[in-house]
């Protein structure tokens, strides 16, 4: 399955994770060449049958579901869902019900021939299956296991529900995001999820490195909220030093000025600009045609600009509002000023810089069609990265994994199907 000459050739990863944080971590490792086997319960993806049936009826009545190709969930929505197909591309997929002893047995046999187990259940789940690290280590002493619970395996909030949509606020991201006169804001990216993903991918690489040098496996516990608080050290230390909870500052910065998001010509068009030094300020002024106010003494130095930001922002907006957002960005950047057009999803997908760097992966999925997906943001000069395998349809690789990798007979596989331990499609319960 793996492409010759990739970093993680010959490394096999069992991915039990759901939704985002875990699946993206496993995909980053798949993009380095690991063979990732996604293990799903036969009960299916994206809710029960009833919900899917309702969705089909609503689609027939004219409703558009943007996470499905052309807004159409189709007859097998579980194989057409965009987020699923994105986070799980480059993986193999099997179904396996870990609630049954037979399912646990198959899992243990897989652990014997694998290198990494990745899961993001709440802490009780793997223990209840009898598949915690202590149990897996008995089967394979060199196994690396990573768990990614929201709050960790210990502490009073251990068993609290934890979603990206509540963790990012608890970690503190929302408290520092918002308009100066508003309350806190969600990030719209449930930011603790991707934070946990990238940390987890790095943690697994470190464990694989350690194992390559020492032969030893290990257990990694990644509490998503802790990995997130690590990225909030500045406001945290300000509080520790000064007891201060700085308010929300909109688009401003604690020392740069001007630093903001300015309206441009057109509908909902904006450009963000950040000026750090006096040299950049002079470059900014000449780019916008040096109107008389740019000569004012109070704007000449950084602290003056910072103190007079309200006026500065109004004056700058008078220039930007006449400009195309992309054009404003290019003119400022060419003069050495940090500026970025505020791009929407369509513009991001057309971005010439990303195109030139071939950032997006083109992937053809048998049931969802051909789409472009964001690629691996890390490139190695001598080793290929990134692949273009579609996400597996549910149960697609049951026979390859159970038959070829585990050497199970057709009869054994048939029995598991009959006992509903595995399935070729979602099972309705």
């Amino acid at each position, binding site marked *: 399955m793996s492409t010759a000459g990739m970093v993680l050739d010959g490394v096999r990863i069992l991915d039990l994770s759901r939704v985002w944080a875990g699946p993206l971590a496993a995909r980053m490792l798949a993009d380095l060449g690991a063979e990732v086997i996604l293990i799903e319960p036969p009960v299916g993806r994206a809710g029960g049958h009833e919900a899917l049936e309702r969705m089909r009826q609503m689609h027939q009545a004219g409703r558009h579901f943007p996470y499905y190709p052309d807004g159409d969930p189709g007859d097998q929505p579980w194989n057409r869902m965009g987020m699923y197909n994105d986070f799980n591309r480059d993986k193999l997929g099997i179904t396996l019900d870990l609630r049954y002893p037979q399912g646990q047995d198959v899992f243990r046999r897989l652990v014997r021939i694998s290198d990494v187990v990745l899961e993001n259940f709440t802490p009780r789940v793997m223990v209840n299956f009898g598949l915690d690290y202590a149990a897996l280590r008995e089967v394979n002493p060199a196994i690396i296991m990573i768990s990614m619970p929201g709050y960790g395996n210990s502490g009073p909030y251990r068993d609290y529900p934890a979603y990206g949509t*509540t963790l990012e606020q608890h970690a503190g991201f929302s408290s520092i995001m918002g*308009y100066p006169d508003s309350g806190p804001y969600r990030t719209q*990216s449930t930011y603790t999820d991707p934070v946990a993903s990238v940390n987890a991918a790095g943690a697994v690489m470190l464990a694989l490195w350690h194992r390559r040098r020492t032969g030893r496996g290990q257990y990694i516990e990644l509490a998503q909220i802790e990995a997130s608080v690590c990225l909030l050290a500045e406001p945290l*230390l300000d509080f520790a030093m000064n007891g201060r909870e700085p308010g929300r500052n*909109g688009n401003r910065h604690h020392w740069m000025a001007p*630093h903001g998001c300015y309206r441009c010509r057109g509908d909902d068009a904006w450009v963000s600009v950040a000026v750090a030094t006096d040299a950049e300020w002079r470059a900014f002024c000449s780019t916008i045609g040096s109107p008389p106010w740019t000569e004012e003494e109070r704007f000449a130095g950084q602290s003056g600009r910072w103190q007079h930001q309200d006026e500065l922002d109004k004056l700058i907006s008078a220039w930007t509002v006449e400009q195309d957002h992309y054009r404003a960005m290019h003119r400022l*950047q060419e003069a050495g000023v940090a500026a970025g057009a505020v791009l929407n999803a369509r513009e991001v*997908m057309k971005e010439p*810089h990303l195109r030139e760097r071939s950032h997006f992966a083109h992937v053809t999925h048998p049931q*969802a069609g051909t789409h472009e997906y964001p690629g691996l943001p890390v490139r190695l000069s001598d080793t290929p990265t990134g692949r273009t395998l579609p996400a597996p349809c549910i149960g697609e690789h049951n026979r390859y994994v159970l038959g070829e990798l585990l050497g199970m007979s057709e009869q054994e596989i048939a029995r598991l199907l009959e006992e509903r331990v595995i399935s070729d499609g979602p099972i309705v319960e």
Partner: protein
Amino acid sequence: MTQRALEGISVLELGEGISASYCGKMLAAFGAEVIKVEEPGSGDPARRSGPFPKGQPHPEKSGAFLYLNTAKKGITLNLKTTTGLGLFRELVKTAEVLLEDFPPGAMVRLGLDFATVQNLNPRLVVTSITGFGQSGPYRDYRMESIVGYALTGHQYINGEPDREPLQGPGPQPEYQGGLHAFFGTLAALYVREETGRGQQVDVSIMECLVGQHQFTIIRYTYGGEVKTRTGNRYESTYPVTIYPCKDGHVALSASSPAQQELLYALVGKPEIAEDPRFISPLDRIANAEAYDALLMPWFKERTREELFHTCEQWRVPCTPVTHPGELLEDPHFRERRFFVEVEHPEAGTLPYPGAPFRMSENAWQTGRAPLLGEHNEEVFCGRLGYSREELCRLRQGGMI
């Protein structure tokens, strides 16, 4: 018995942003010897960025610098002089990793482009973190966090529909560059065990961010919809939002029908479940104002703490909107000993966030940040074999 996973890996860190510093901090925490190279006199820009005790700038007391450089060694070196560059090249020959976040053009001007340093040391892994990567039309454009949020689709969807788009929470684009660089550096080291050769790791902050809100991208590539700003209201289902409460705000995320039913029972309004305006997720979003008006009063009468624990008992996801500083006293983080007290000769003892993940075999080490030039003697004399007199001359010449 835990080991230092990166024992024996020597890293040279050169840069001006959070990205290289955060990656270096993680490598140092797992046992690499990270030598941070700073400009003589002024030092790393993070020394000037704060936060500072009582707001008073001091190069050894900047919170950002103290946190981002734990467990590293610090040297000073003037790369604008031939002698300084020569010393740096000598160090390159003794290192396993060169980690840098300068603009691509700056490394070329210094004569430290990848081809040149690889000639000096073919085993060297060079990790380069830049705003836009080592190629492409924006290669030499300037990156600041707000520009990163803007160009990658994050800012456009954050904030109110009738107001300006909002930047994200602090310098996350730079942190993402550092996190991805940690992953990429380890990948290059891992493959070097086989090939014996180093290579360049190219991390583009813009690309790091594009992949981090994929719901927005997928809505467009699959469904042809361009997501716009919707304030705090989540569009796929509802209520996933932020509500005001007695002493601040809480995040509420009752995304499944079962959780919604529990929520209605909890606030004493089970009839909401039968209200035709609120049956499907899209109905609740379309009628969100009326819906919020029914739920919000119950939240407004309670504190964040009460809501967090009461909702948990009902298995309704609801958390306090917290300032990160408040977590220092939180019993959960205390019990897990997440925050670590770090002593520093100038800045005193402060609590820092600890390990982002915990490895049973490889402990995380915090250490403290180096004083400016603290390890000059150790590195130049101990490692490169210069005498104390030569070191003095270098110092007088402004090289270090």
